[in-house]
């Protein structure tokens, strides 16, 4: 087990700046997920940790050792690739032992390590097959086996589940989490799937356009997203964003939300970090998660707004309702029993204590 520190890391491909000033301190045994949209630089960052890409600026330390100039084989890492990258002409057995052969591990130790990993991943019956004779899920297991057999200081995963079908993906996700709980190895895991990030991570680094937007525990990232990009990226359906303004009503700061035709609705202030920023008249964006919107029993209660249900989408456990509120579309997650019908006039109860306020210009969390 080792820690990983990434300090002021930058990467440039010719004239293109791909990563800017990345700083991450990963504790020993942590499971850190790098998540972000395609092309944001996740794989490049992982390849730099692995030593497969050169470092333009900054430094990477694994444990106490600076590894900037250390070749991949000496970094004490193991990696699982999105394509699995199994050696196609070798059997599963040779795939798993190839690394040990390259490092001249004694035959007896190789056999013991192979047996341990094969039973851990339940791939004993596959050992004499070639990769082409395996299903997607089996290949995935073998790729994991090849990484696990090394007992490295650091595990790296690059979208290991994105080539699996939905059901298998969920199963393997659970299995990876279980493996991490058993082995407790420091892990960096890349995905573009925010659900994977939320379920697996001890901490999530949300990336966008080559920068880390937020690096924190999943719950914080979800509930207190650092900016509107993170707020919109994490969670499906995405957080609702409603333009609003700060005001003072009866000596108490509140948020004025424009409503259909009628006067703006004054909502109690969501939790904010800097009280000093609460200048009346400041333009803000109110961020509301679909599941924090409820149906009010009666109009006129506190923190309620009138809206019209436009589209109703049952998903099974929940029903998504797209409503029109103050000229904006809002998505709410309702219990199937209480969901309205399309066209209904409804009263939505908002929960300001679970809402977020963003600056209308910088899009940062206030």
């Amino acid at each position, binding site marked *: 087990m080792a820690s990983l520190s990434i300090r002021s890391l930058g990467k440039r491909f010719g004239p293109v700046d791909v990563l800017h000033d990345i700083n991450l301190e990963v504790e020993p045994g942590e499971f850190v997920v790098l998540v972000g949209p395609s092309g944001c630089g996740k794989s490049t960052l992982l390849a730099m940790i692995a030593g497969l890409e050169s470092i333009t600026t900054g430094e990477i330390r694994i444990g106490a050792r600076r590894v900037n100039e250390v070749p991949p*084989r000496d970094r004490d890492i193991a*990696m699982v690739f*999105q394509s699995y990258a199994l*050696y*196609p*002409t070798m059997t599963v057995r040779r795939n798993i032992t190839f*690394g040990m052969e*390259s490092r001249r591990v004694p035959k007896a130790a190789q056999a013991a390590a192979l047996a341990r990993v094969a039973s851990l991943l339940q791939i004993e019956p596959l050992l004499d097959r070639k990769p082409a004779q395996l299903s997607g899920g089996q290949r995935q297991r073998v790729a994991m086996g090849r990484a696990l057999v090394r007992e490295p200081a650091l595990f790296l995963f690059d979208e290991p589940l994105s080539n699996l079908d939905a059901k298998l993906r969920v199963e393997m996700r659970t299995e990876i989490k279980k493996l991490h709980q058993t082995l407790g190895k420091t892990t960096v895991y890349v995905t573009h799937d925010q659900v994977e990030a939320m379920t697996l991570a001890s901490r999530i680094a949300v990336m966008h356009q080559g920068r880390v937007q937020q690096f924190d525990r999943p719950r914080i990232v979800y509930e207190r997203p650092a900016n509107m990009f993170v707020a919109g990226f994490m969670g499906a359906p995405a957080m609702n964003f409603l333009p609003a303004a700060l005001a003072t009503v009866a000596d108490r700061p509140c948020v004025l939300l424009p409503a259909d035709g009628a006067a703006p609705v004054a909502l109690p202030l969501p939790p904010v970090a800097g009280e000093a920023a609460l200048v009346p008249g400041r333009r803000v964006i109110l961020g509301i998660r679909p599941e924090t919107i409820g149906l009010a029993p009666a109009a006129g209660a506190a923190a309620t707004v009138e809206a019209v249900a436009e589209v109703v989408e049952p998903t099974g456990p929940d029903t998504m309702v797209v409503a029109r509120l103050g000229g904006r579309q809002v998505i709410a997650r309702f219990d199937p029993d209480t969901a309205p019908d399309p066209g209904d006039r409804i009263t939505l109860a908002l929960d300001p204590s679970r809402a977020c306020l963003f600056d209308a210009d910088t899009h940062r969390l206030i």
Partner: protein
Amino acid sequence: MPYPQAGSAGPAAIMQRLRRLPLTPPLVLAPSLIATLVYVVGFALWSAWMSVSTSTLLPRYGYAGFVHYRALWSNHRWGIAYTNLFLFGSLYVAGAALLGLLLAILIDQRVRAEALWRTVFLYPLAISFVVTGTVWRWIFNPTSGVQHLVRSLGWHDFSFDWIVRRDTAIYTVVITGIWHASGFAMALFLAGLRAVDPDLIKAAQIDGAAMPRIYLRIILPTIRPLFVAVLVILLQFAIKTFDLVLALTSGGPGIATTVPAIYVYDLMFQRGQLAEGAAAAVMILAALVVVLVPYGMWASWRRSRV
């Protein structure tokens, strides 16, 4: 659609209807299949028949038995030609494939001006055998080529006279052939190397394998089917060798570099011995069979083992 459509009879509509017919694939393949059958199988059988016929200058269809084969094998010149075929064939195929592979691996290391190197090495293939042979004849010629050049630079006892010596002349043919074809092998191998999943190489690097081991154990085994393709193509170049030898050595000195193709041409069209020429042609086919049948058996054995 960029062009106007006349009802449903536009070219696109016709193509679509054609595609739906179950007959289309056989119909499209038929011309080349028929041509292959007639030219390859048909003429091979005809040659076989001719080789046991009483033909001389013109085809005759009487049966003569195996006299022409006996005549062929009792001829010293044919023995040399047949030995040369195997000697030249194996050295040329192995040499061109190995050199091509080596060049491809070197270029695969992301060298500068890669396109230039590729063109330079591929260029010889664009030059006909006759020109190649003529130019290399000058290069090998002791009085005008390398020997002359080195001697005029001051090394007066330098000697490079392979082309005029009976025991070494065939190697000048091999060298010229390799020069001509290795760029072609390189192009095929390079395409194959470039198609290998780069993640495989990254995985092997993390697995601690050094570059030679990565090539030997992972990349080259992955492109094994390509080796077969390259070897088969080179092999049929080797067996067809005719104009290269003619231009380079004219089969000489003496008969030292005669190859079966020259021999067949001589018998059939110079000396009017059609039947014996056909027998020689059948022996060339036999040489191919000797190489390809064991390979085919080996390949299907491997497949059954997987």
